[in-house]
């Protein structure tokens, strides 16, 4: 399941909804990305964003046997400490959940069309793509 939204999300509620009623699930891995230090505005490409997130989720479900998965990504202006993204994967055993969760956030970072504009002390600054993110995505 994927969602692209301006509003915040409730991790506990999303995690409970993801696993509820499925007692084949033995492990749930999640990753939450948070705004560090300075406010930022997340711009995205409506339409393509949903499409890419769904493709990435499909790829995870091809590579691992997952019982459930969820990606929520926010856009718009966010303050420090606010949640940006939630990735959650549930599987019978922990390895599939942990690996696919790391895979999803690594791929999302380099493939989902989002751009961050930070409000730094010296003015607005577009966050630059990092080579380490390409390397993290390439290892899968």
């Amino acid at each position, binding site marked *: 399941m994927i969602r692209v939204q301006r509003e915040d999300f409730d991790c506990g509620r999303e995690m409970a909804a993801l696993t509820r009623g499925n007692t084949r699930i033995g492990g749930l891995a999640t990753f939450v990305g948070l705004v560090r230090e300075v406010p930022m505005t997340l*711009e995205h*490409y409506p339409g393509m964003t949903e499409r890419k997130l769904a493709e990435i989720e499909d790829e995870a479900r091809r590579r691992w046997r997952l019982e459930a998965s969820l990606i929520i*990504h926010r856009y718009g202006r966010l303050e420090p400490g606010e949640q940006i993204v939630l990735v959650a994967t549930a599987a019978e055993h922990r390895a599939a959940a942990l690996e696919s969760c790391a895979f999803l956030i690594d791929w999302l*970072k380099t493939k989902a*069309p989002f751009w961050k504009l930070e409000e730094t002390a010296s003015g607005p600054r577009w966050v630059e*793509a990092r080579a380490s993110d390409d390397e993290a995505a390439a290892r899968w």
Partner: protein
Amino acid sequence: MRLLYFAWIRQRIGRHEETVERPPEVTDVDSLIAWLRNRGPGYAEALKDASAVRVAVNQEYVPLKHPVRDGDEVALFPPVTGG
């Protein structure tokens, strides 16, 4: 063709989207970028370094040699930084 711009490419060009008639010499992403650079100083500045530009045609990432056709949705933007 529907053209979309994001992040600092959008800011430098000064608009988010526009619809243009495809000139006959524009057959791929490369020639589209070359043609756009001549549309004004904002375009020239935004697109001066093609290696910093990522392109999606009809919402799929494509290389610079990818063809563009009438009716395509072509988006130009910097490398993504979400997550």
